């Protein structure tokens, strides 16, 4: 097995022995905490489109360790960390097929729908106020519909069709809010949003006459208020057409059509869009799903599909599209294919300087945890909660203490932490709206804010560990598994024990500082 030679001496001297899936490890091998031997991970059909290409570029990527894999899958798919118990059991499990079994368990967990509802809420702009006034209970109805659709694994084409052809009350038929959550609520603005969301295409840069052709499909949408405060009904309103001439519309592929007068034009558009042979529809979702897991679209940015932005790996994209179509738009099926591939399981530790390596997925790219995922991880580890509020005065926004940030049903619900760490503004629905770039103020907060320090000192789960009668080396192990989802190396364990004994700290401070240090490592803060 190829191994990168960047390993540090400290790994080699590690004393923690870990069972390796597939049993290919030499007994007593000092395990690298980050890179696995990968012997038990079979190549999948997907890998045929990725790995040979990397070999041609001279890259033979290492496979991540079990510890990295469980953390990666949890964060990528559920937006949460494995518990110490889950991490320990997985790492020490000797079943050859444990990674596949983990994927199946993860896809069935409740957090799956919660986490992906958050991701979709960014793209579908689920936010009570600013810059679009959706109103809290409408935002919550929208979120509820999205989450329920994901929980039942509704086929993606049906999910889109229900939104595009929706009519009804913003409080009762959550999906109608797709048409309300648009800043520029004109036929042209709606068409632009539809193109961005479901075609991955930026209509702002289309040739001039395309958008006027497409907007006709969205020019008969009625919005009317009711006697209930802030309720709004979305409906097909043919009376918006005042002249009797036949309505001509143009699909984004240039095909002209005369709109039948007895049919909601949005249905005509949806029928055109939601077909396997539509050049954008399947491409967009397949590419986005890959980018959500691998941090980069095969076409990149994933919502900038155009002919002069070609895919870095067309065969891979075709394969994912085909799988999407033959599985009848089963999103879990495509997630499963990716998660089980060796291509997904490559290590993030790569020193390949080939500029093409990144675009060809030679290593798993580092990305800072999403704001919500990060604060939830901190709260889960320490057993604490945060206060979330919405500035919109509204009786419907009740936020129970136990609710995680990932589960918040409305982008207007926030905290200063979420603001600081780049919670999406949900103004445009673009993928780049969520910003995970490191800022000094964020580092300051993690390093030194009383908000974090208090959780570390007084969080019930932290106290339970500090006050347990565990021997020092067991204490170190428990903190590592809880915070980093892995066992410590020998050097790390030694360092930790000697710091806890040093004169600078007294009482539990040594252990508080260990938890503090681990939470401030790149390993904690980044998906890796």
């Amino acid at each position: 097995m190829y191994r990168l030679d960047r390993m540090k001496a400290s790994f080699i001297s590690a004393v923690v022995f870990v069972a390796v899936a597939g049993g290919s490890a030499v007994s007593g091998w000092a395990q690298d905490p980050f890179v696995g031997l990968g012997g038990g991970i079979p190549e999948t059909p997907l890998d045929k489109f990725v790995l040979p290409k990397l070999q041609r570029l001279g890259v033979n990527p290492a496979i991540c360790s079990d510890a990295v894999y469980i953390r990666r899958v949890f964060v990528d798919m559920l937006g949460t960390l494995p518990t110490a118990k889950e991490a320990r059991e997985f790492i020490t499990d000797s079943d050859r097929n444990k990674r596949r079994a983990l994927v199946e368990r993860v896809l069935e967990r409740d957090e799956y729908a919660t986490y992906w509802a958050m991701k979709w809420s960014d793209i579908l702009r689920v936010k009570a106020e600013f810059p679009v006034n959706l109103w809290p209970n409408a935002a919550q109805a929208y979120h509820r519909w999205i989450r329920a659709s994901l929980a039942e694994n509704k086929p993606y084409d049906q999910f889109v069709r229900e939104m595009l052809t929706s009519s009804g009350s913003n409080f009762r038929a959550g999906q109608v809010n797709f048409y309300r959550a648009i800043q520029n609520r004109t036929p042209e603005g709606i068409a632009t949003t539809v193109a961005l969301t479901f075609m991955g295409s930026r209509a702002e840069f289309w040739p001039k006459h395309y958008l006027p052709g497409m907007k006709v499909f969205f020019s008969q949408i009625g919005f009317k208020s009711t006697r209930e405060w802030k309720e709004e009904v979305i409906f097909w309103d043919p009376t918006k057409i005042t002249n009797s001439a036949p309505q001509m519309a143009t699909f984004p592929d240039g095909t002209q059509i005369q709109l039948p007068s007895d049919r909601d034009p949005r249905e005509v558009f949806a029928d055109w869009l939601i077909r396997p042979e539509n050049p954008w529809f399947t491409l967009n979702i397949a590419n986005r799903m890959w980018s959500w897991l691998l941090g980069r679209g095969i076409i990149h940015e994933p919502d900038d599909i155009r002919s002069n932005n070609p895919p870095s790996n067309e065969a891979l994209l075709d394969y994912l599209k085909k799988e999407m179509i033959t599985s009848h738009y089963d999103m879990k099926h495509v997630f499963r294919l990716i998660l089980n591939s060796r291509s997904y399981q490559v290590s993030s530790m790569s020193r390949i300087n080939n500029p093409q390596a990144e675009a060809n997925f030679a290593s798993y790219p580092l990305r800072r945890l999403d704001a919500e995922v990060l604060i939830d991880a901190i709260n889960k580890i320490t057993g604490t909660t945060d206060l979330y509020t919405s500035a919109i005065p509204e009786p419907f926004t009740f936020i129970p203490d136990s609710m995680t940030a990932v589960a918040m049903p409305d982008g207007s619900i926030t905290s200063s932490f979420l603001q600081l760490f780049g919670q999406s503004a949900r103004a445009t629905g673009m993928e780049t709206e969520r910003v995970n770039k490191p800022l000094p103020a964020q580092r300051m907060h993690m390093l030194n804010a009383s908000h974090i320090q208090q959780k570390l000192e007084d969080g019930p789960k932290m106290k339970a560990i500090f006050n347990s009668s565990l021997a020092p080396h067991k204490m170190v192990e428990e903190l590592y598994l809880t915070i980093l989802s892995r066992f410590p190396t020998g050097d790390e364990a030694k360092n930790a024990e000697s710091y806890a004994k040093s004169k600078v700290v007294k009482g539990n401070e040594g252990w508080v500082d260990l938890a503090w240090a681990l939470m401030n490592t790149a390993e904690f803060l980044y998906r890796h």
Partner: protein
Amino acid sequence: MSTNRSSKSTGVYGTGISRREAVRRGLVGTAGLLLTERLMPGALAAVTQPVAKTASSGKVKAKSVIQIFLWGGMSHNDTWDPKPDAGYEYTGALKAAIPTKVDGIQLGELFPELAKQADKYSLIRSMTHRNFGHETAAYLMQTGHTPGERLAYPSLGAVFSLFKSDTYKGIIPPFVVLTQPAGRFSEAGFLPSKYKPFATGGDPNAARFEVEGVVAKGITDERQKARQKYLHEMNTFGNAMANNPQIAASDDAEKQAYKLILGEGKEVFDLNKEKPELRDKFGRNTFGQECLMARRLVEVGVPYIVINYPAGWDTHKDHFQTMRRQCPQLDQGLAMLLQDLSDHGLLESTLVWCSGEFGRTPKVDWQPPWNGGRGHYGNVFTVLVAGGGFKGGHVVGSSDAKAEEPKDRPVYPVDFLGSIYTLAGIDTNALLPHPLGLEARVLPIGEEGVKSNGLLKEIM
């Protein structure tokens, strides 16, 4: 006011043609060709917007700006535009107007301290935008752009931190909010998040102003340094990946953070370095101490400081009680801020403005459930401006006899914001970097449907 765009130096790639024009020409030239492509929308890549490094135009008079925002909307006729003759229906119990240091300028009776400083500031009594929603009016007053456009524009502070990034190199972030962000409002708009404000949290009136992230509770400097070293030892993954650009960026951010935590940064926030008598003069309350804190931030060159008034002014109910409670603190803190800036020789280079997102209905609503309250009012209201190139002792425009409509010289948001930008040397016509590469300018002066009456030349 009209602006001749073509005379400005903001053309695309120095060609002298506007971006809009370039896009139009590009499309006209290639559209036919594109029709044959499999994926049609390849017309134009999202190009990186050419943003002028320095958008300066003219001399920089305002080096720093202090914005005091009276969230909720403060009544104008009870405060800085008194109408003692309007009758009880309008004035309620606050019917007295008091003279000020400047002949002919009167203030409401709750502002005796500001009355003594009237030579230092001017009042715009004809501010108007006719918007009655908190979030939309707040957006209008802090971005200058009409709400409901397809882009969410950045606020003044974010634009300052964008354009001042090449001249301001201090360790305190360039855009500071005391102490909480406003909410219901996205300060950075479409700009990258590094232009968001740094909100201090904490309470400057507490025994120790605990600025979140800068001043930690109960951690000695010795332990602070020991654990910094410890962190570096324990950062196994990060150390092995030190060459990764993501890790390098994170390390840079950490270095800057430690400059604030261990360095002179935390001194700036230490109000105990000020004389107790001076602190008393500002008022021993949160707002008063925020004003003092703002002066300390100006001293180290921070370009834009926002004080979000620590209590709201949305007085639909309990209006007069709230005014009697809050106005004296506003009066004392703001008046002392102007005096103190002047004492430190900073008023000339520091622009101070104070306003809410709108005023309040001049006629009192005596009906239940309001029982003597005032509603939202965007037709006319008053803004206080001082320093940074604004003259003191003047009144711009006026409202009618009952403070219901502008009487003369209506001032629109772009006129007001345009004056601030101009005094700070920021070109109101400069391009802002939009993530999609769309055309976005600092202010929409001269654009269709945007009302303007020109910059506030009379006090500049």
